[in-house]
């Protein structure tokens, strides 16, 4: 039988606020345990939540970015369950009336076509703390620093049909939340997490199969592997006469398998009800418009523009729009140079990205400014330096030796374009190598490279390559 996979994702994006969703405690990552858990986060008796304005703004921004409806009125509810990392015994979340509903985002498939993935809803909620399982005399330690960190839970429609599509969707959302600056996207620190609902059905069948919820997948690679494993497990199970049960399964990256979370098997009854400590969140149209005005050009639109306006390939456009600071950097360079968008792209994607990678730096911390890079590219275009020498100039700029003109002057890298000077050098080389000249003239074309090498050596690479080639050819044939 041929099977079809059905996947829906629930993505938890931590919103990049300074303080928590309902308290004034810091959200900074990595502090000593429980030093960023205030009375509200600890759920001490008598304390009350007050909503952070910034989370409303960020959720609204996200809603607008995925063409969703931003609810005029949304309501916080309590999700009641007991767990040690949940201090109040309930999580404040949104249930019946989420802040964002009915949006979508497009993904690109391998065959180059695009597919629209629906976003059912995105709602605000508070994160839980962390249980530390290293052994404290048979006890578990609880750190509540993370408790109360704002989360946007983004729930997709079950629109994806393969692990690859799921990863493509997750990447698009990941790119978007960073682009609109509502989440830092740091997956190692858990700022961007994902649960996947996975089911299979015989191809052609309308009804969905029974789904399993995969938890704890914290990288793009693991999403793909976890889903692939789970799909195979479900198909094998059904084909051998078994039945998929609706359950939560944990992905174990060490063993590359999913396993049932039996400890949580008991039926959950979350007893949702509107949180009486919080009032309905009302968003005025003027607020929405003010947020809309702050929306940057979104990655999809920017990608299309890079192709049409700068003549870049899809690959280049994709690469350069992967993050907003990178795309901004690139555009600044292009604007400054005023031409040769492709050459600019090559430098940003080539040496610059390689150096950033090598030194573990973000584009925002690049030692070479957009002005410096543009200045250097201008010197390539006006033949002051060759592309090859430019690499040396770039390294010097990277190491803080000043802008391109200063480096060129200081190191004497200016290209030799004086035909007389180049001719003189060629004459000297030909005179010193009579045997090779004879051999070349008798048909050993390959020796041309030898003469170029000698000339470049003599000029420390500064001879204008095109001029050198032309003159050398003329002299050798003469």
């Amino acid at each position, binding site marked *: 039988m041929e099977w079809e996979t059905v996947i829906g994702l629930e993505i938890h994006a931590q919103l990049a606020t300074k303080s928590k969703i309902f308290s004034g405690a810091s959200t900074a990552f990595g502090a000593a345990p429980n030093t960023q858990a205030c*009375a509200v986060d*600890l*759920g*001490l*008796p*008598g*304390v*009350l*939540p*007050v*909503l952070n304005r910034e989370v409303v703004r960020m959720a609204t921004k996200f809603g607008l970015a995925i063409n969703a409806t931003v609810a005029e009125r949304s309501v916080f509810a*309590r999700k*009641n369950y*007991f767990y*040690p990392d949940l*201090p*109040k*015994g*309930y999580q404040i979340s949104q249930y019946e009336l989420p802040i964002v509903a009915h949006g979508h985002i497009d993904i690109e498939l391998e065959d180059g076509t695009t597919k629209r993935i629906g976003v059912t809803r995105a709602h605000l909620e508070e994160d839980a703390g962390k249980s530390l399982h290293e052994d404290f005399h048979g006890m578990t330690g*609880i750190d509540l620093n993370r408790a109360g960190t704002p989360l946007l839970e983004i729930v997709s429609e079950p629109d994806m049909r393969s692990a690859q599509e799921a990863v493509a969707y997750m990447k698009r959302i990941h790119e978007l939340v960073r682009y609109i600056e509502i989440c830092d996207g740091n997956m190692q620190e858990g700022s961007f997490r994902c649960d996947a609902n996975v089911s299979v059905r015989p191809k052609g069948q309308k009804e969905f199969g029974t789904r399993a919820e995969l938890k704890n997948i914290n990288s793009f690679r693991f999403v793909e592997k976890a889903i692939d494993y789970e799909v195979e497990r479900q198909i094998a199970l059904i084909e051998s006469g078994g039945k998929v049960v609706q359950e939560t399964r944990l992905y174990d990256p060490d063993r590359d398998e999913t396993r049932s979370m039996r400890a949580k098997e008991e039926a959950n*009854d979350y*007893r*949702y*009800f509107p949180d*009486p*400590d*919080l*009032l309905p969140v009302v968003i005025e149209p003027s607020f929405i418009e003010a947020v809309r005005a702050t929306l940057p050009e979104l990655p999809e639109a920017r990608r299309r523009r890079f192709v049409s306006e700068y003549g870049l390939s899809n690959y280049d456009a994709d690469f350069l729009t992967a993050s907003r600071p990178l795309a901004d950097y690139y555009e600044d360079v292009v604007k400054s140079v005023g031409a040769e968008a492709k050459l600019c792209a090559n430098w940003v994607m080539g040496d610059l990205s390689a150096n950033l990678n090598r030194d573990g730096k973000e584009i925002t911390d690049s030692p070479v400014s957009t002005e410096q890079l543009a200045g250097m590219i201008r010197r390539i275009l006006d033949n002051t330096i060759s592309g090859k020498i430019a690499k040396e100039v770039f390294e010097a700029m990277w190491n803080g030796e000043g802008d391109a003109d200063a480096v060129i002057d200081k190191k004497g890298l200016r290209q030799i374009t004086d035909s007389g000077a180049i001719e003189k050098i060629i004459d000297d080389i030909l005179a010193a190598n009579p045997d090779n000249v004879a051999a070349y003239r008798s048909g050993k074309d390959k020796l041309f490279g030898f003469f170029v090498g000698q000339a470049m050596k003599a000029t420390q690479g500064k001879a204008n390559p095109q001029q050198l080639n032309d003159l050398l050819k003329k002299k050798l044939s003469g």
Partner: protein
Amino acid sequence: MHNKTLAELSAGLTAGAFSSVELTRHFLERIARFDGQLNSFITVSVESALAQAAAADARRSRGEAGPLTGIPLAQKDIFCTNGVRTSCASKMLDSFVAPYDATVVAQCNAAGMVMLGKTNMDEFAMGSSNETSFYGPVKNPWDTAAVPGGSSGGSAAAVAARLAPAATGTDTGGSIRQPAALCGISGIKPTYGRVSRYGMIAFASSLDQAGPMARTAEDCALLLGAMAGFDPRDSTSVERSVPDYRAALGQDLKGLKIGLPQEYFGAGLDPAVGAAVDAAIDEYRRLGAEVVEISLPNTGLAVPTYYVVAPAECSSNLSRMDGVRFGYRCENPKDLEDLYKRSRGEGFGAEVKRRIMIGTYALSAGYYDAYYLKAQQMRQLISDDFKRAFEQVDVIMGPTSPTVAFNIGEKTADPVAMYLADVYTIAANLAGLPGMSIPAGFVGNRPVGLQLIGNYFDEARLLNVAHQYQQVTDWHQRMPQGFE
């Protein structure tokens, strides 16, 4: 000194007739002498009280005293007090010393008031008789065989017996008004949102409201002025300026329209209580008020509605009492579930557990619509009843409680009978309206309370209407015997 009102004590302090330290010592001595009979305090904070009193005297000598500076009061043990145990009358919080002050406490402190201690109450404010306290029942100073009412029974008994000139209370379904009535004192539950709930241990968040309990309406006006106000830490606190409640007290009542809901005078009302209330209404007629009969048709459903809303909210509010970060933790839990179940099972008393279970049930899958949603709809209907009534009248009056104080132990076996004792007070909480109870006579030796319900944020009028009555009656000046 202990028979003086807050206004008189304030005048005495200003005139230098006595110092705050003297005043505080006087009340501390009275507590030491008499509270053994009443059990109205859970904690008496002698040292911090004397320190606060000395600080108040110093503040006065610097010329920085306000009207309440140096005046002692008792705080209901539901308000978190930094450094002084806050038990909520529960074994669960027997060892709980809050690391912060409730806003109400902070505001009383800022006014320079002196906290004598923390008063007894029903456990987590769940009760109408003060019999659910982990620290034992409070006795009614008028008759120690009787309950003082609840849940703010300790505050009411302490004020009635002159162990404190005033006290704070909280009212979720009548917990200020009913004990005020049963102990013969005055108490007002303000409009929901008028007084901050921050640091007040939550019972039912959409119903809870703190207010003052004192002997006179004027004293309630003074204390409410200090308690009320916007608090940015409480999302349900209202951004609205606090009027000078004392300024309006003197207004006469000519032309005041009083509504008497027929449903508050029907079956279930003790005729002797009814007669006392009728006499009080007659007094208002003599003061120039116009009395009309009105109807609040859904009155009978207030108690059923309340016993869904309040338990549902409390079942969730009390989940944080889990033995992990504070409070009672059972001995040697064998696993996590055991830790939760035994800490909570052993830490909570029977009434609290009943309400948590009712609330859990009402919110659980399959029952939400029939119970919780239905109750919210009922709440709307009850609220609409009042809205219509206040198109006709300025204030609604009736009995606070259908009977005078009942005997200790009389209703403990039957929770439902106990719940029905709150039939007249609960609706104001469901609607969020301000309500007040003032002394209006006796049946035998047990006081009767007259209830006044006002429109939203009409506390000043309620206090005015109550004050005018107290200018022509002396019920509020009566003192129980045996506490001189």
